[in-house]
Every structure is written in structure tokens, then in C-alpha cells.
């Protein structure tokens, strides 16, 4: 009895701790989400949390000081004297209210009292700017002003899909083949090669950029989708191979032996047994690889560039803020639009994590 209650108690503790951690993890996203609906001027003035009801000093009254008050001397307000610094920060007066400059130049002081307020200024302009593109005003030679519409995110969104899907499928397909071979086939130098693949895990991709770029230039692959698929496939392979190996090598040996006895070739074993059995693992490495490619900026920057017909989302978003970062407020909305796809992929593939595919497969 005691033991059971203590177990239930520890479970509650774990849940509470997890909930708190989740909450902390979520806060930045929530903040970003709220900010994406706020006008830029409001974001500059107040934090996103002010949209929640909160207690703040609200002006109840105003005091007009004589216009010739010298700000560098102690200032007398309603019989009390304060320094200029105090009035800038806000200072408690004798009756519990707070005095603060409303307009230093006009020498008016706000009398503040705490009250409940919330900030309710929202706008959809950020999303509009991101989705349909900004409009630019251009003066023509004869002085007429014409507006020109910039590109929205749709083209970049499609480009990113075109990059991400093959760049996920290609390396994972190759990695699964390789993992099967490493795990269940016997051939010379198997261990050595596997060690080399593992070693490639620690090689940072940055050192390979200029050499690969040179090769790509020679082959004419720069700025093409094929080029970036190959680049992502190469950079993603070591991890995918290792990941798939650790899963496939854990599958029960009896399964393959019986299949082999029944006359199955390696290819049949791979397609009929390995692939279906490793679906959970393939799904999870797919999510990794897909997210990595989707969010990638560096590889796209070097190998595919910024031409509108091939430009990917991450680069489009970076360009949206303008040459000097004047449109930073669009970033919040753009971030959410670009987040849609990874979220969809995650929730779409989520069921593969929970499904226990191996249950009972060796029996009989």
C-alpha cells in the first residue's frame, strides 16, 4: 500500500516537472506567435506579455509645473522635492501615488496609480506582408509613382519542398542499404569501412564547402536542385547510416536465417523484411534529416544561391528584412509560416513512433 502510493506520488512529481519544462520550452514560441500579430511600433514599445492582463501604473491625474522650472535643481511637486532622475524613473509620493514625467519639455507630471490593463492592439499586416509580398513605390522617369509588388513566400515554399523531399529520401535510402550491408553481410574490410563512416560523423561540413564548390563549378551543378540534393545527401549520410545500422543490427537474426533458408535473396530480405520492420526508425531519421534540410541556410547559401527560381525559404526570409534590416517585424510572421511544414511532417509521422512493429514477429 505504502509502496503504491509512493510510486503514484513520484509519478505526479515527474509529470509536474515535465509540464514545467514543457512550459519553459514553449514560452519563446508563444512570445513569437503573439509578436507576429502585433504592429511593429507596439513591439518596440512593450513586450508581448503585456497582451495578458497585468498590473501597471495608470495615469490618474496630471500636475503642471511652472514653465521655467530648472531641471537641474531639486524640483518641487505638491510641496515635496524630487530630483530630475527620480522623476524620470518614477518616484513614490507621500500619498502612495507615483510621480513621473509625462512631458519634460512642457513640465507636466503624471500622477500614476496601479491598475489592471491589457494590450489589445493586433494586426494581420505582418502575415499579409509575408504571404503576398511587400509593395514597393518606384518613381518613374516622368515623375509618376508606380507600385510594384514583391514576391511572396509561395515560390520559396515550393522550392524548399523540391529541395527537402529528395534531399531526405536519397540519403536515407542509401543509408538503409548501407546499414543492412554493414549489419548482416560479410565482406572484406567491413569493419574498416564502417569505422570510416563513423569517423565522417565528426567532420564538420564547412571544411568541404570550397572543394565541393570547385567540383560543382567544373560539373556545372551550382545553383541546381541536383547539386543541393547531392550535397545534402552527402552531409546527411554518415549520421543516417549510423542511425539505421544501430536499429537494423538489433533485429533478430533468426528472422533472416529462416528467410534465407526459404530461399530469399538479400534483396528480397531487404525489401520484404528490413524495410517494413525499420519503418519507425526510418521515420525518425527522416524527421531529423527533413528538419535539417528545411531549416538549412548555409548549404543553400553556398550551393544554390539566391536566384528567385531556386531560392529556399530560409534565404527568402533573411532577405525579407531588407538590406539594412528595416523590416525586421516581418520575421515573426515568416518564422511561423516556415514552421508549418515541419510541424505537419512531425505530426504526420508521429504515429510511427508509437507503433510497436516488431511485436510477435519471430514467433511461429
Amino acid at each position, binding site marked *: 500500500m505504502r509502496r503504491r502510493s509512493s510510486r503514484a506520488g513520484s509519478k505526479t512529481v515527474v509529470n509536474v516537472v515535465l509540464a514545467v519544462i514543457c512550459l519553459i520550452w514553449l514560452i519563446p514560441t508563444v512570445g513569437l506567435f503573439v509578436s507576429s500579430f502585433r504592429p511593429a*511600433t507596439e513591439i*518596440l514599445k512593450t513586450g508581448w506579455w503585456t497582451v495578458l492582463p497585468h498590473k501597471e501604473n495608470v495615469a490618474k491625474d496630471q500636475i503642471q509645473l511652472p514653465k521655467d522650472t530648472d*531641471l537641474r535643481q531639486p524640483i518641487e511637486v505638491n510641496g515635496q522635492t524630487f530630483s530630475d532622475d527620480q522623476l524620470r524613473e518614477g518616484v513614490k509620493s507621500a500619498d502612495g501615488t507615483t510621480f513621473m514625467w509625462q*512631458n*519634460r*519639455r*512642457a*513640465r507636466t507630471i503624471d500622477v500614476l496609480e496601479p491598475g489592471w490593463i491589457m494590450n489589445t492592439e493586433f494586426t494581420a499586416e505582418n502575415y499579409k506582408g509575408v504571404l503576398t509580398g*511587400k509593395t*514597393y*513605390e*518606384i*518613381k*518613374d*522617369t516622368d*515623375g509618376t509613382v508606380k507600385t*510594384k509588388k*514583391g514576391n511572396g513566400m509561395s515560390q520559396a515554399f515550393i522550392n524548399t519542398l523540391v529541395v527537402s523531399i529528395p534531399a531526405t529520401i536519397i540519403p536515407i535510402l*542509401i543509408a538503409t*542499404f*548501407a546499414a*543492412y*550491408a*554493414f549489419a548482416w*553481410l*560479410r*565482406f572484406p574490410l567491413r569493419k574498416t*569501412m564502417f569505422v*570510416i*563512416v563513423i569517423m*565522417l560523423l565528426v*567532420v564538420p561540413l564547412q*571544411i*568541404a*564547402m*570550397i*572543394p565541393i*564548390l*570547385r*567540383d*560543382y*563549378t*567544373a560539373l556545372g551543378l*551550382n545553383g541546381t536542385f541536383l547539386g543541393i540534393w547531392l550535397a545534402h545527401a*552527402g552531409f546527411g*549520410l554518415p549520421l543516417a547510416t549510423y542511425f539505421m545500422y544501430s536499429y537494423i543490427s538489433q533485429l533478430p537474426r533468426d528472422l533472416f536465417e529462416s528467410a534465407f533458408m526459404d530461399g530469399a535473396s*538479400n*534483396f528480397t530480405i531487404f525489401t520484404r523484411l528490413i524495410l517494413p520492420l525499420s519503418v519507425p526508425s526510418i521515420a525518425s531519421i527522416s524527421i531529423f534529416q527533413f528538419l535539417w534540410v528545411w531549416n538549412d541556410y548555409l548549404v543553400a547559401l*553556398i550551393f544554390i*544561391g*539566391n536566384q528567385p527560381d531556386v531560392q529556399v525559404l530560409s*534565404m527568402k526570409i*533573411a*532577405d*525579407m*528584412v*531588407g*538590406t*539594412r534590416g*528595416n523590416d525586421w517585424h516581418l520575421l515573426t510572421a515568416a518564422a511561423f509560416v516556415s514552421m508549418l511544414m515541419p510541424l505537419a511532417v512531425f505530426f504526420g509521422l508521429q504515429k510511427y513512433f508509437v507503433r510497436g512493429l516488431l511485436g510477435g514477429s519471430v514467433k511461429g
Partner: protein
Amino acid sequence: MKKMNKTSSLVTVLILVFALIISACGKNNAESSPSSSSEPSPTPSASASTPAPSSSAPASGSALEEALAGKYKGTTVTMFGPFTDADQVKFEEAIKDFEQKSGIDIKYEGSKEFEATVSVRVEGGNAPDIADFPQPGLLNNLVQKGKVIDVSSFISADKMKEKYNQSWLDMASMQGPNGPIMAGVWARSSVKSLVWYPKKAFEEAGYTVPKTWDEMMALTEQIAKDGDPAWAIGIESGTATGWPATDWMEDIMLRTTTPENYDKWVKGELPFTDPVVKKAAEKMAEIWLNKDYVYGGTKSIVSTAFGDTPKVMFENPPKAWLHRQASFITTFFPQGLKAGEDYDWFPLPPIDPAYGQPALVAGDIYAMFNDRPEVRAVMEFFTTGESIKTWIQSGGVIAPMNDADPSWYTTDVERRMAELVKNATTIRFDGSDLMPGAVGAGTFWKGMTDYVSGTVDLDTALAEIQKGWPK
């Protein structure tokens, strides 16, 4: 199980061999590339492009005339540069007419990471035909490696002199491996020595535009007495935090010492620890470190984004009254303000009358990496004011070319900028853009930020900045 399937093992082996080769290649190239790269020869001719048959023959007319005659119809010139978004649209609008007339397709690619990417591309043999450098220091690195094509090889010196002021030409002349070359052409510029103010409120408050530094300080004090901090200053700019402070320093240097000293300073011959530089920093500190003179006090300078800084001038009533920043800052002003009515500028006034009214400028230099006749034509096109005409009309740029007509500027505010540059006693380029990256985009930014934030005192800060120079 012991017997393995031959085909599938072969596939695996092939994949691994491929991986091995890739890794081997990677190492090989990385080691050999800095010392002796195979393809780019000392005379940097076209690296990967196919030379057009007509290229080598001595051209009868200039490349530009030939292009306008339609000789290069159907060719493509790639361009790579740092401006994106609105600037990109304006640029493309400005070259549209030329593209239609000549039939040359100029493919512009803008990237926020231009500075980081362009070197990688040039090293990787994937150089654009033309690249737009806002920082000549960066271009200088590539010129030293012999990657840039000498503009004077196809545009005569006389012609260049006709198009540009001598000081622009001096700034474009850089030291290549085989002697000095004309590294590029100046295509657009901005003026930096401007002090912006909210004109309407400024006049209503009865203030007048100061003509000298002392008058400006008196105005600052007057505004402080009236109850406002005079200056809106903010230097936060992400990883580039501190650059507006370097502009101030350069502007004050031009006003407190000789142009020769300024040049020496930019070249690294006059150290930051020199009393001349220290004097300039102290002059700047008169404003910056006085909490009554700066909106939000000195401590907010480092944390205020430079683009958001001027916005307080346009609140009603203004919370600050003066803001020193380059001409591009108007894109950050709240929308709907009218140039010349709601805001205006005056030149940062002279400090020592001996040095007159100098102007600090910045600009974009277009450099050429692949020598093809159509690229030459496009480069020549960029030396004409016509190439940025509509851009001038829609605002935000000043033409460095002599043949740009002042009537193209649609507002007086911008026309006066062009005049300021024309009439300036000395024109100097933004020094931090000319210094090597380690200083100009490194310790200079950081040192100024540390000094303003109060982390270190002035002497330590200047010594830190000086350490950035390569020994």
C-alpha cells in the same frame, strides 16, 4: 547467411569508395587551395566562361555602344550583391531600360550574407561576372589575390576621369599582384556626414540650424535645458554593433585633423593610440557620455538598434531632436513623413575651421571577375548616371557619376546631399570600410562599443582597437 549477395555488396562497396574519394578530395583541395590554385592564372582571365569569338579583337566602338546596337543580344551577365528586397527592386527597375535596349539579361542575385559568400564563391571558381562591394576593403583582398579584372583594360583613363571625381578614382585604384589596377566602377553612393532633425517641430521650438560645432553644442545645451535630450544615438546592429560609432569617429577625425592624417589612420600608419585619434574620441564623448544629451542616457546607446533610433524624433512632441546618420536612414523613418517638411538635415558642422566642411561618404563599387564583351558593356553602362536614374528618382541613393543630372533628385533634401559632396573641402570614404576586416569590421566596432558601454576607459579601448591591425 555467410554467402553474401554479390550485387548488393558491390553497391555498398561502391558507395563507400565514393565516400572515401569525396573525403580524400576534400582534404586534398583544402590543403592545396591557398598556396597554388590550379585554374586561376596570374592574369585573371575568364575562369570558367566560354570566351565569345569576337572578344579579343580590338573593339572599334566602346563595348557599351556595341551593346546598345544589339551586338550582345541574348547574352546573360550574372551579378551578385548585398542589396535585397526594396533595394533590389529599385536596382532592377533602373537597369530594365538598358536590358531591353541591349538584349543583355542582367541576372542580379542579392544576399544578406554577401560579405561571407563572395569570397567563398570566388575561391570556389564560381565568381559572378560582376559583384557589388559596399566595403572596398573586402574587394581589396580579392584584388591582391589577382582575381579581379582591371577596368582600365577596356575603359580609358580619360573616360573614367570624365565620369568620376578624382577622389572616387583614387579610391578605386588598388594594388594587384602585377601593379595598381582600377578595381571597379562606383555605382552608387551615400553621404554620411548628415545630422537629421524633425524640421517642423524644430522650427516651432525656435531652434536654428547650427553652422559651427560650438553652435551645435550650444543648441544641444539649450535643448537639454528645455527638457529634452538633444541626440538620438543607438549603435546596436546585431553582429555589427558599434558601426555607427565608427562613423562618428571618422567624421570627427576629418574635422579635427588633416586629410593626410586621416589617410594614414585608415592605412594603419597612424595608430589609434595616437593623441590625434584620442582627441577625436574625446570630442565625441562630449555628447555621447553626457546623459543629459542622449535620449535614454549613455547606457541605452549600446542597446538601441540603429534603425529604431531616429523614430523618437518623430513622436509628438519629439523626444530627441538630432540624429547623425547616413542618407539611407530615411528608409527607417516612420512612414508618411515628408522630406523637407517633416524632416531635414544639416551637415555635421566643422570643428576646426582650418579643415573646412569635409564630407564622409560610402558607396558601392562594382568589380568584374569574368572578362567577356557583354560584361564589359554592362560595366561601362554602370559608369553612366543613366544606370541609376530611376533609383535616384525613387530616393535613397546619390550618384557618384558626374553625368547624373541634379534635376533627377525628386526632393531638395537629396539634391542638397549631392551638392554637399560636390562642394566639400575634402571627401573621404568611410574609414572602417577601408581598413582590414579585422579592424574595420572587428576591433573598431567592438572597442567603441566597450568604451561607450563603460566596460573600459578610452585608453584601453583605443589600445584594444589598435591590436586588431595585423602585425
